[in-house]
Structures are given as C-alpha cells and as structure tokens.
C-alpha cells in the first residue's frame, strides 16, 4: 500500500492504493470517475484513455502509483463550468455518440487534438484517433463533429485543395 496523491480534473485526491492497481481501476473504483471505460484491458481499444500529466495515455496499461504526484484529466475535466466544450457540443449535434461507450475517450482525444492543432487535416484526425475503437462505427459522425469545430482552412489552403494553387 502506498499513498497516492493525484490531481484529478483539478481536484486533489489522496488515497491509499496497492502497487499492482491499474490507473484505470483506481479512477473507476476508488475515485468513481466512471467516464473512463474499461473494455479490452490490454491497451488496444483505448476507451480508458485519459490525460496523464498532459499526455493522452491508455489507463489500463499504466499503474496508479505512476500517477502519484501528477495530474489526470478525464472528459469531465474539459467541460467549462456547466457549459459543454465545443467538441462535446459537436458530438451531441452530429449524433457522434451512438451507444456512448467510446464517447468519453473520443471526445477527450479530439479535444486534445484540436487544442494543439486547431485545423487538423483528415489524415491528422485519423492518426489522432487511430488508437481508439468504436464498435458501433460512428466514425463518419465523429469526423463530421470534429470538422465542425476545427477552424476553417485559410483562403490559400482552400484554393490549394481545389488544385488551383496560389500564385
């Protein structure tokens, strides 16, 4: 047993935890953050993705003690007070949720992508979510949701896309 102090969505949490407990189980069972989903438990489906010290990680392959002294953000943490973040709103509007099981991971991952890259290309979006699996296949709607909140291309980029180039 170790004392584990982690800042979760801005709130400091202090719990005793065994060395062999996964960050995923720590978050769900001890801290009751239920948006973090458990599915494959082997780092493949990515539905347990959280931000650990500013990096997206799959929490089923991270130990809780590794987060000791650090900071974890889950999808709850990106909501601005009681107002949904633009990407959350976009998921609602575009029906990108379907059964909803993978939604927290997708929303968090896309939010992070757009934070660092406000105008991602289709290729960049695909790469960013390549570690996530949506079994009901809302990929098309998820794409639309991301496109709706990413910034529009500049005039030059739009022309280039049309094959006109800029002289």
């Amino acid at each position, binding site marked *: 047993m170790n004392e584990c102090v982690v800042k979760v969505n801005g709130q400091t949490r202090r719990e005793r935890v065994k060395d062999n407990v996964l960050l995923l189980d720590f978050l769900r069972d001890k801290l009751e953050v239920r948006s973090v989903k458990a599915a494959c438990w082997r780092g493949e489906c990515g539905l347990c993705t959280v931000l650990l010290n500013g990096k997206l990680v799959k929490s089923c*392959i991270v130990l809780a003690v590794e987060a000791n002294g650090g900071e974890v953000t889950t999808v709850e943490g990106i909501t601005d007070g009681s107002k949904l973040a633009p990407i959350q709103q976009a998921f609602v509007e575009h029906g990108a949720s379907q059964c909803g099981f993978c939604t927290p991971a997708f929303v968090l991952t896309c939010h992070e992508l757009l934070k660092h890259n406000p105008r991602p290309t289709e290729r960049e979006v695909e790469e960013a979510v390549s570690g996530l699996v949506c079994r009901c296949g809302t990929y098309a709607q998820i794409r639309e949701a991301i496109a709706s909140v990413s910034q529009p291309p500049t005039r030059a980029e739009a022309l280039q896309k049309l094959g006109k180039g800029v002289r």
Partner: protein
Amino acid sequence: MSFGSPYLTLPDFTYHRASTVEEVIALLKEHGDEAKVMAGGVGLIAFMKERLMSPAHIIDVKGVEELRQLRYAPGKGLSVGASVTYEELASSEVLKEKYTVLHEAVSRTGDPMIRARATLVGNVCEAIPWIDSAPALISLDASVEIAGARGKRTVPVAGFIRGPVDIDLESDEFVTGIQIPDAVRGTRGAFEKFTGGSEFAVASVAVTLASENKRRRARVVFGSVNSTPVRCTEAEKALEEGEFTQATIRRAAKVAAESVECVSDVLASSEYRKHLVEVVTLQALWRLLQN
C-alpha cells in the same frame, strides 16, 4: 474490480521508482532474479496480466534523468536512452534526416497513445518476433548498452536478441540505451511492413543503403518472418552490384524471397510469408529508387 478474471488483474509486486542508474543496479543486485525493469510498461503490464511474468519487484526507470537522453554527436552517432519514448523519437529531426529507416519504423509503431508511453529499449528487450524496431536497428548496425554490478558492456542488437523473449542479459543487468553509429552522408533507408489488418506485422523489412569508398553498401533485414530478425546477405549483394535500377531491385526482392527462411504459424504459411518478403522488399526499394 476487474470482474475477478486473472487476465485483468496484476499479480502482487512491490513498485520501486529509481532516480539514478546506481539505484537501478543496487535494486537489481538485491532482487535481480525476482525483479523486472519497467520503462513504458506497455509490454510488461500485458505480460503480467497474462501471467507470462510475475515479478515480485518492479523497477520503474522513467524517473532516471540520465536515461531520458536522446543525443546525436557528429562522428559518434545517436544514443537513445532507455526511457526515450516512441513519441520523442518520431518527432526527432535527426532521426528523420539521418536514420530514416528507424524513423519510419518508429512512426508506424502502435498508435499515438502507445507511442506516448512505449520506449525503443523496452521494445527491443521484449524481443517478440514481430517487433518493428529490431530490423531497423540491425540495418543500422546499432548496439545495446548494458550496465550491471560487474560493469558495462555493449552488444550488437543482432546478437542481443537470441530468440523469442530471450535476450543476452543477466538478472543483475539492465539496458541503459541503444547506440547507433553515425550515418555516412547520403545514407538512405526505408521500412515497410505488411500487417494484413492485424496489430502486428506478418512480414517487415528494413533497408539501409550507404556509400562506402564510392561503393554502395546495403543492409537488408527482415522482421516477423522468423523467431528473430533475419539479415539477408544475398539480397544485400544483389543491391551492391552494378547500377541501382528497377531491374536490380526486382532481382534483390526475388533473391530475398528465395533465400530468407520463413516460419508457418496461425497468421501465415511460410509460402505466403516468402511472397510477402518479395512484396515488402519491392515496396521499400521502390521508394528508395524514386527519391
């Protein structure tokens, strides 16, 4: 509570977070037989869930500053510390420019979340037949740097990986990093893998072409086709002779398919793998021919 399945929980162990190389060595001296070093944990945690490994002690090396270094020195080459992640490697300009073959292998490993945690050294220490980094490293003549209570030693990656999950490492030793010799000017490389939609490669190839005293020098190493990476000197010879043309690359790919020994398993028969050997070789060489 993980539904009580043994596959979803981890066995009991004591976690140690080391902050110096000396500390790692001291812990290994004390618990070596019962301990495992952990970098990203991506592989180790999966192995433990499946009870393929149940170490009583885990030594986390992520906090060791010295092992975080990714350094390039002209003439000496690139050294990759044991806790340098794939993400750091994929965004390295030196890697992209000078060690293209490794950059391509690294950028195509897993997904962004895996790359944020997984390390190159951890990948090599895993020594699973279908890892992508080993062929690239072998094609670059890279070596593994090892430290232990009895001192330091260096082993070529090709010899370090002895078999599936079998590496040249004593229980009181660990890997501090990987050293890659400086690439001569104009060195080019390409990595290709065929996954057939699965997570891992069914066949992969790493090619490095360099010029040595005005002669072309080739290295061709296959992954995922046998229990350890396979270097194909016959294909290398075919690439070193004469002009570098379409005919040459076709011949080299054919020679590789004829001479590389491939295993049959649940993913593919040896005949199919031989076909893939030819295909991935052509793909890698075609890109080298074009730029």
